[in-house]
């Protein structure tokens, strides 16, 4: 949200690129777009950490859950549970499937909200602490796991796998294969390839848009925070610098407040689409 100090050394471009570089096992920016031998430590650290925090908080509420008068914390968690349970009930009509899918949706919602909320921390806070801890002024670190495409696509592919699983479970292998070739256009053999192609495109589009939507929002939000930080950082080297500092405070405040909406909305959208896609897997075309 705000930067602690003006970076006078590197250029604005360097600053942005540095902040968009993951802490990975390569030690530098990933050269290729796709490289399965590389792991982003920072993404994994923050996502696993926040995931554990999520289930710990939920477990804390679940452990003390009684039918008596709930406290504020328990009431809050219960509101979330009811919200997710209601949505799941409206979308997925199989109570058996809801036993796993509804809890998953709850976790996904809280987890993604927390991961998104990392965006509201000052953009330089955790990276600077990391750089001082490692005594390396150029040590990279990104703190918003959902601004990493690998993470968001990882989750959306998880949803895809669940869709495939429930397709097979509900319709059977034969039933699902039949649907793959006869829907959406019809059962005529000449239409089979077209149908199959459409089905594959549908699965791909759903999964990629699911992951990309969250990634794009968070990546853009993170970038705007960096630009605001750059604007504030430039105040010392400019004649009209005071205005830039004021602009930083104003823009940072406005964007952070707006971003509260974005992070909540994106978490909710991801959860809802998870439910919708899995719900679609339960319905025949």
């Amino acid at each position: 949200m705000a930067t602690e100090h003006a970076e006078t050394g590197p250029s604005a471009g360097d600053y942005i690129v540095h902040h968009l570089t993951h802490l990975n096992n390569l030690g530098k920016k990933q050269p290729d777009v796709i490289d399965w031998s590389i792991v982003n430590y920072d993404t994994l650290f923050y996502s696993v950490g926040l995931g554990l925090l999520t289930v710990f908080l939920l477990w804390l509420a679940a452990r003390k859950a009684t039918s008596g008068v709930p406290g504020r914390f328990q009431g809050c968690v219960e509101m979330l549970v009811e919200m997710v349970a209601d949505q799941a009930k409206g979308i997925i009509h199989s109570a058996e499937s809801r036993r796993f899918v509804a809890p998953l949706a709850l976790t996904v919602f809280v987890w993604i909200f927390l991961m998104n909320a990392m965006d509201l921390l000052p953009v330089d806070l955790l990276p600077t602490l990391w750089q001082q801890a490692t005594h390396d002024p150029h040590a990279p670190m990104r703190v918003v796991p959902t601004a990493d495409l690998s993470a968001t696509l990882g989750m959306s592919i998880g949803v895809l796998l669940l869709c495939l699983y429930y397709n097979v479970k509900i319709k059977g292998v034969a039933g699902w294969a039949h649907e793959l070739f006869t829907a959406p256009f019809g059962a005529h053999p000449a239409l089979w390839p077209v149908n199959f192609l459409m089905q594959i495109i549908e699965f791909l589009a759903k999964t990629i848009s699911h992951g990309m939507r969250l990634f794009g929002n968070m990546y853009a939000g993170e970038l705007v925070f960096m630009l605001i930080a750059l604007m504030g950082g430039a105040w010392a080297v400019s004649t009209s610098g005071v205005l830039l500092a004021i602009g930083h405070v104003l823009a940072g405040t406005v964007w952070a407040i707006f971003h509260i909406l974005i992070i909540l909305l994106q978490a909710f959208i991801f959860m809802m689409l998870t439910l919708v896609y899995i719900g679609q897997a339960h319905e025949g075309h």
Partner: protein
Amino acid sequence: MNLNATLFLQLVVFLILGGFTMKFVWPPIVKALDERAKKIADGLNAAEKAKSDLALADRKAVEELRKAREKGVEIRANAERQAGEKVEEARAEAARIVAQAREAALAEASLAAQQARDALRDQVAQLAVAGAEKILRREINPQVHADLLANLKQELQ
């Protein structure tokens, strides 16, 4: 914007977290929610029942009160009537006793008067006879004139 093996690890974490929530978080909370909903429903039902019971009891109390009041009125009327009767009886008795007493007194008085009159008459007769005897000692024979004297006595009565 790069893709790498983080994707698979994230996928695994995603499924593990979902599994954890399914196992340890969701069931107790949903159970508590259902139980509370049931509790609240029971409480509302009980309140509703208590309300209707209260209304019933109220109606019953009013009814009982009305009955008691009616009975009270009836008892009072009876008591008044009985008291009136008793007073009437007592009054009649008293009148009877007084009348009786007066009658007895009158009878006694008239008897006494009669006796006194008889005694007086006897004495007058004796005095008359004694006087006449003194005057007509020789000429009057008591046995002869007894009838005469009796007649005289009769007239004096």
